[in-house]
């Protein structure tokens, strides 16, 4: 029997479309359900008020603030270190066995389960360095967790700058550092920013790394120093849905919606930055 190539093609296209559809449906459903169930809870008071009546009423302000603190702390720590490491690895380090092992290790670190980072943070920052359960410990733990993401995406961004630009710059008598500073880095910025914001989104959403290092079940006041504990959105969500009986589900879903909105908003910024720089890109 002869195969009809058009028929096989149609079947293949259908299977690929089905696969794409199956990917999109759950994502869409998550958004729809959370928005549908969480939107009724949305109000100015919900966003800016302290939790009340054992977190069964009031707002989630301290959790939002805590998450913002943690994410900012993580990025302040991880971006400079990650960027410098990426520049070193892609521009300066010789391509030998050691650097290849280091690069492989960094890629693999991105896949380590977040609870392992949590335990590591507990052992190193909370216990050994005696920072206690604090914003500092939590930020550092989250920072370490997102370092591999930042390094890997920054390296890719740096390596995607054409080699010919480097050669031109060097051939004009510019030093290696000048070449990196004036040619390579400016052209790698969109990629670096994208990676950074993806890392931020991850840091904002993870529960396990902050579980042992910073997160508080309930705090009556906002944190006032780096060494205070803080509430955070993902952990607050976990508490609401498993630890507190008789919570109105709209508060739980409202919290989820705020968390989702923050993460989506960050991804949106990443997309906008990438788009704007891609328009400027001229090679």
């Amino acid at each position, binding site marked *: 029997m002869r195969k009809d190539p058009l028929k096989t093609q149609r079947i293949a296209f259908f299977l690929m479309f089905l696969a794409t559809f199956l990917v999109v449906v759950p994502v869409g459903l998550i958004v729809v359900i959370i928005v549908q169930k969480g939107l009724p809870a949305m109000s100015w008071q919900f966003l800016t008020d302290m939790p009340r009546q054992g977190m069964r009423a009031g707002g989630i302000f301290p959790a939002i603030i805590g998450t913002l603190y943690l994410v900012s702390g993580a990025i302040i720590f991880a971006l400079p270190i990650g960027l410098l490491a990426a520049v070193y690895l892609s521009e300066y380090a010789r391509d030998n066995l050691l650097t290849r092992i280091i690069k492989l290790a960094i890629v693999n670190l991105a896949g380590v389960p977040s609870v392992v980072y949590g335990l590591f943070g507990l052992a190193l920052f909370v216990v050994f360095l005696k920072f206690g359960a604090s914003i500092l410990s939590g930020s550092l733990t989250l920072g370490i967790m997102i370092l591999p993401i930042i390094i890997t995406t920054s390296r890719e961004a740096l390596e995607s700058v054409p080699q*010919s*630009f480097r*050669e*031109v710059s*060097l*051939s*004009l*008598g510019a030093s290696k550092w000048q070449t990196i500073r004036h*040619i390579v880095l400016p052209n790698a910025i969109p990629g670096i920013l994208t990676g950074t914001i993806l890392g931020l989104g991850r840091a904002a959403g993870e529960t396990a790394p902050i579980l042992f290092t910073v997160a508080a079940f309930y705090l009556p006041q906002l944190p006032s120093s780096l060494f205070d504990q803080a509430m955070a959105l993902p952990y607050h969500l976990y508490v609401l849905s498993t630890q507190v009986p008789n919570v109105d589900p709209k508060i739980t879903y409202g919290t989820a919606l705020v968390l989702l909105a923050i993460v989506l908003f960050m991804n949106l910024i990443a997309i906008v930055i990438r788009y704007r720089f891609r328009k400027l890109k*001229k090679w």
Partner: protein
Amino acid sequence: MVKFQVRNLNIWFGTVHSLREVSLDIEENRILSVIGPSNSGKTTFLRMLDRMNDLQANFKMSGSVIFDAVDIMRIDRESLRKRVGMVFALPLPLPLSIFDNVAYGVRMHGLRRKKDIAGIVERSLKQAYLWEEVKDRLRESAFKLSGGQQQRLCIARTLAVEPEVVLFDEPCSGLDPISTAKVEEAMLKLKQDYTIILVTNNVKQAARVGDRTAFFLSGELIEEDNTDKIFTAPADERTDGYIRGKFG
């Protein structure tokens, strides 16, 4: 006066022996055309003169290249490349404006005064016969220029740092005949002030602009002589075969 004295130069990339026992003098204020088929080592030879081969991790060499009485391996790369400029095979503008492309080199060498920089940009663009075409659009992206204009921009950018030698690596390989003629015109004019080494795949171009011509084959320098001599009575029959187009 001799600008470059190359003696017994051997170059390896890993285990590949790319250049064998090349010895050659390059005269000041002349154009030396370097011809030869692909993989003959002519670009490797050119990239030796401003130490661009050093960028390759597995680069090894023996012999010496003397530049104005100093071994180039004893000159730091930045100072050497400031004195020995290079124009690449493809037009490679940096992702900057036309003005900033030309100003890039001198800015990297520490020039800050805007007036000085503007003067250098204008002078260099004039030397490359590009000024009239771009003087009203210096702030535009260099990528908006045509291929031929981009290559002349690259020449202007190289001249802006006031090198003593300009290396051209097949500068017209991607250009149409009219753009090629303009680049050649620029080169002929430039030899009054610069020493020029032109690697080209175009034998006719070598004949048109070269004062002297060197023929490379399989990493060896077969012969080097006055261009007239090479094209009328070459000493080696392989040179004769190549310029007549019997192989390539």
